[in-house]
């Protein structure tokens, strides 16, 4: 870890921009492409001002052509640039899957190690907008099943900055998942322009000894709130944020479960087939298996498309109280 001098309070969204901006200043090979990212500043205001600083040659508004955005980024990465590209919503990665999965992810391997594909695919994800079934998905599990890709998701502004910088410096295709519901959240962010978060390293966000919760994205904050509440009742929850979802550093999770004997895994994405299943399976296969005092509990999105009505929408993803009750359940308090 490098020394961190100065910190500044800023929004998650602005922290991503700061990280991108610093990397673009640092390396002329970094370019940024996507729909309406220039003058408009991105659908979520993320890239406001970047066109002015870097010009049209490095901040490229594209036509509405997701397959071309991803494919162009792969081709550019292969030949010496370090593109960052954006899907306006993660749901639209469905249109770029071929270039991402069949080309970008596999080239290094298919070509026998001779080429690199250093690209970052930014994917605004999840619920909270009332945007309905085609604009609210969390599809990280797909990407975590594609050897050759890396998948990361920051949960705080500081992580957002550190991780986007690390992603840009990585020599592989990195899928960078940004829960839209976090864009406006605030936190302290290191201003050091060499501050990065190591890809492939799981973080312990809060130590505890009674129950382990693995949570990422929007659910980290909800789990933290639940933990604070439970602390008052004398329950010590350990909260772990994998940060890199693929390939995942399981060791801290295994160690935590050995300590607590109880595990909750949480994400917004539908439970069936989600990343949580993989984590649970890994624990069930590991040396932690013998230490489990209760079945593993997954607190995940329901197996349903995301409904439009905001009340319905909130009802299909886990909330703070689900964590509280989940912990009670594992401790046989209910």
């Amino acid at each position: 870890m490098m020394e961190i001098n100065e910190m500044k309070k800023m929004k998650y969204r602005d922290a991503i921009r700061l990280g991108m901006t610093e990397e673009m200043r640092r390396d002329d090979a970094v370019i940024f492409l996507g729909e309406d990212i220039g003058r408009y500043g991105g659908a979520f205001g993320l890239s406001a001002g970047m066109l002015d600083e870097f010009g049209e040659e490095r901040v490229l508004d594209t036509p509405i052509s997701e397959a071309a955005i991803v494919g162009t980024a792969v081709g550019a990465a292969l030949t010496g640039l370090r593109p960052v590209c954006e899907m306006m919503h993660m749901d639209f990665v469905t249109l770029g899957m071929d270039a991402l999965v069949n080309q970008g992810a596999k080239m290094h391997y298919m070509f026998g190690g001779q080429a690199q594909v250093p690209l970052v695919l930014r994917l605004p994800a999840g619920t909270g907008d009332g945007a309905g079934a085609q604009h609210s998905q969390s599809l990280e599990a797909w990407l975590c099943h594609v050897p050759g890709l890396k998948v990361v998701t920051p949960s705080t502004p500081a992580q957002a900055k550190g991780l986007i910088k690390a992603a840009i410096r990585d020599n592989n295709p990195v899928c960078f998942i940004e829960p839209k519901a976090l864009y406006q959240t605030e936190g302290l962010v290191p201003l050091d322009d060499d501050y990065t978060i190591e890809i492939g390293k799981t973080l312990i966000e809060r130590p505890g000894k009674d129950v382990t919760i693995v949570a990422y994205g929007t659910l980290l904050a909800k789990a933290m709130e639940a933990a604070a509440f439970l602390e008052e009742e004398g329950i010590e929850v350990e909260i772990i944020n994998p940060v890199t979802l693929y390939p995942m550093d399981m060791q801290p999770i295994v160690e935590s479960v050995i300590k607590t004997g109880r595990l909750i895994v949480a994400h917004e994405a539908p439970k069936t087939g989600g990343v949580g299943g993989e984590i649970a399976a890994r624990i069930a296969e590991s040396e932690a298996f013998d230490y489990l005092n209760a079945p593993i509990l997954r607190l995940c999105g329901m197996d349903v498309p995301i409904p439009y009505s905001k009340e319905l929408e909130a009802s299909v993803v886990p909330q703070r109280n689900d964590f509280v009750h989940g912990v009670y359940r594992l401790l046989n308090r209910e």
Partner: protein
Amino acid sequence: MIELSEEILLRMYYKMNQARFFEEKVEDLLKRGIIDETVYLSKGEEATGVVSGLALEKGDLVSMTHRGHAQAIGFGLDVNLMMAELLGKSTGYCKGKGGSLHIADVLNGNIGANGIVGGGFTLSCGAALTQKHKKTGQVVLCFAGDGATNEGSFHEAMNLASVWKLPIVFLIENNLYGMSTPIAKHMNIENISDRGAGYNIPGLTIDGTDFLEIYDVMTKSLRYARAGRGPVLVEAKTYRFCGHSSDDPQVYRSTEEVQQWQEKDPLFRLKKYLQENRVFTGKQLETIEGEAKSSIEQAAEFALESLEPDITTVLEDVYA
């Protein structure tokens, strides 16, 4: 030029007013925070949706865009159920599960609005294949925006529709921008109708603020497709008066440009025509406007009074 009966003109004026009032009511509900989900408005572009809807024959189908309220009203959807859907109510077209982006009335041939730009192109091919297979004689009207024609699905659908001679009329509402991106920055051609040549599909460019031209060209295009001669690509140049979505600062265009287009407001053009040609008296026009307005007021009331969806229904309808 195809003649427009008084009856058609009456419906046209009524529906175009309805569409305008609908959008203004939604703007109002957005401002008041009663709607705070994602909604795209088509103020200024109502003619393409409404007029082409009136050119359809009974039983024809339609595929709508994310900016589909006028298209829906043109097709004949119920504004009460539309408004209820926008408010996420149980009485809406989709029981509050779909929202503006998924308004549909499939049994009556409206195969839905779409949140995926360009999502309707290939769906329309499928709907048209059904008509061909079942020999219904019906045509599919597929709406899309200028930006949508840069999606791969546009190309694949145009090609397939041409090779299979599917009964589809593609109507591109070219409002000169895909979101904030001006057309010159997202394609390198003057007229989108030029894209027809790559598939041997007739391509036509029309004034999307002129109801006469829209009605004429759409009626003829639908006839062409209905006769089994294959698809037609119609591009209508139009303009959106409002922002792309509710939080659009519109930094990408000048107020002069907006004003210039406002002078071509399709609703005023229609009204002027009806006045100048004395199709209806001033009083009659007022009555039509009033009825349209009150239909939207009623729709808002209906929507506001409707129940929220019961939370226990949230897992229903995943599988048929």
